[in-house]
């Protein structure tokens, strides 16, 4: 029988893949992909909790839809900035962005 903890484990694994990607990637677009994995993991968490713990209301699903909307806005803004940096300085790698020291 597949229970809540199975879904939570899959989500935790996906979240950690996202964290790994965020920490280790050079390319800003790959970092954005890592963030998307983290957000997807959170959504799986929310929907699973909604299904198993509190099915009488759809709060978890509603939260997930909000997160998807914010993620779409995030990617469009992020790509716009990445493109303009690419045009100005011809770079996409985060560790080459060193005018400001970290």
């Amino acid at each position, binding site marked *: *029988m*597949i229970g809540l*903890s*199975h*879904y*939570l*484990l*899959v989500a*935790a*694994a*996906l*979240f*950690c*893949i996202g*964290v*790994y990607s965020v*920490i*280790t*990637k050079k*390319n800003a*677009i*790959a970092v*954005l*992909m*890592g963030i*998307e*994995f983290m957000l*997807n993991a959170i*959504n*799986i968490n929310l*929907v*699973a909790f909604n*299904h*198993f*713990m*509190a*099915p*009488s*209301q*759809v709060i978890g*699903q*509603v939260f*997930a*839809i*909000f997160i*998807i*909307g*914010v993620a*779409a*806005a*995030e*990617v*469009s*803004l992020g*790509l*716009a900035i*990445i*493109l*303009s940096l690419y045009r100005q300085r011809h770079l*996409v790698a985060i560790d080459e962005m060193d005018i400001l020291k970290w």
Partner: protein
Amino acid sequence: MIILFYLFSAILLAFALGTVISTNLIHSALLMMGSFFAVAGLYLLLQADYLAMVQILVYVGAIAILLVFGVMLTRKGSIEESNLPNRYKTIGLVTALGLFGLLARSITYTRFPSPPLESPPQNIIAIAQAFLLQYIVAFEALGILLLIAILGAILIGKEPK
């Protein structure tokens, strides 16, 4: 049910790992698209059919495509080596594995109460009511947020004359 769960989870995690490991950013983007489909499959198993549709429409249809465009517009050097890791590879691996270990330990340790036997409400109707009644402020704010994203993409992306 059980077979489908393991199938979707395996596809999801395999594709996500592939996205991270691949050194070709185009391959990563395509693998990521596949993993988003698997997430939609998991939503279907959890009886969140509307959310599964939103997932495919927004994540696969918009976000992944946008990322592929981003990859192609910012090509620099060989595409074969466009997705290299930086020097924090070991730190990242240790952090991710450690975090997963701790989270997994906490999840298996926690006893969740057995699911209450309530019939779930009509999905789309309940979601629409939540959006337009309970969460109206957040809903309106999300609308403004998307407006700002459009405005911002135009303001930032416009070629300076």
